[in-house]
């Protein structure tokens, strides 16, 4: 069995070539060798459908199709061979935090704030790899379950089919 990120493929979507270089430098340092780049949301979608990367890092703000729309389309497109539940890490800047909620509803997996640091990107990668969440396909939302943790004292109604399933006990190798 392969160990490390050597067998993992990643796609970096950002209109800024310099930012793509920074992200690729970090991902390469973490061990990812199969790296692809896209300069726009449109290009990112094409790459995703063509190559099905294991993880995607995208910017939020891009001219044309922005990061939110990119993720939304990626999640809502059902076609043979396309993994809609591919983990997506979105980069956002200081004043874009208000947009994070919108982006979350678009189906992103993790957010990493700019200025980007190696530690922050690493921790998001660890999150998407080690703590994957169930994937929801509903009329109004397609994306990872937005509940990050089970509230033991939650007393509201249980609306979801999967309520009662303890995903935390689902470990690698069990599924």
């Amino acid at each position, binding site marked *: 069995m392969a160990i490390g990120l050597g067998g993992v493929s990643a796609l970096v979507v950002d209109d800024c070539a310099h930012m793509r270089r920074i992200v690729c430098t*970090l991902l390469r340092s973490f061990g990812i060798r199969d790296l692809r780049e896209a300069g726009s949301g449109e290009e990112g979608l094409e790459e995703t459908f063509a190559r099905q990367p294991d993880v995607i890092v995208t910017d939020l703000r891009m001219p044309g199709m922005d990061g939110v729309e990119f993720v939304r389309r990626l999640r809502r497109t059902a076609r043979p061979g396309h993994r809609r539940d591919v*983990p997506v890490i979105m980069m956002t800047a200081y004043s874009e935090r208000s947009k994070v909620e919108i982006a979350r509803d678009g189906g992103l997996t993790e957010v990493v704030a700019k200025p980007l640091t190696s530690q922050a990107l690493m921790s998001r990668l660890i999150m998407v790899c*080690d703590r994957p969440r169930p994937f929801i396909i509903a009329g109004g939302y397609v994306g990872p379950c937005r509940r990050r943790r089970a509230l033991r004292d939650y007393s509201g109604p249980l609306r979801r089919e999967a309520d009662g399933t303890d995903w935390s006990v689902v470990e690698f190798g069990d599924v």
Partner: protein
Amino acid sequence: MSDRVQPTPVQVLPPNLDLQRKVGGSLAKQLTTAVLAAAEAALARHGAEMMSEVNAAIARIQVQSMLRPPGTAAATIAQDAHFIRSIAGTFGRGPMGQIADLLCRYVDDLPAGAPIDANLVTLMAVALKHLAQGGSCDPELTEDLLTECREAVVVSLGREGRSLPA
């Protein structure tokens, strides 16, 4: 009686473990402090080149702010401000990123064709240039610059009937 509310059709798929399978288990155990240090070192190798690009972006902003009629260059200024905001902090120039962020907030919601506040953009460009030349070594001065820039943005936005987004 169950307190489960009848759900609208929702499909819940189990967590995708593809990455874990490819990685061979826990990634946290594999991405060690040594890997992090190597990543920092690799990033640092780009520092000089990136900061040179940042300096070029500051110079462009300064020139664009002087163009007449003012406002014709808002898109270029926005692009450069966003670039500085993204890059500067990663290379240890956090205050520059914060000033660039203020500039982004000013230009981002500028109505199409509206004139930019040339004085404000010049002020921000001067502040950025000062910090780029090592001015951020003095924390007190840096804080003052940030405060000045923030206040100037608030005033300009107010004059244009806008306010600083949360």
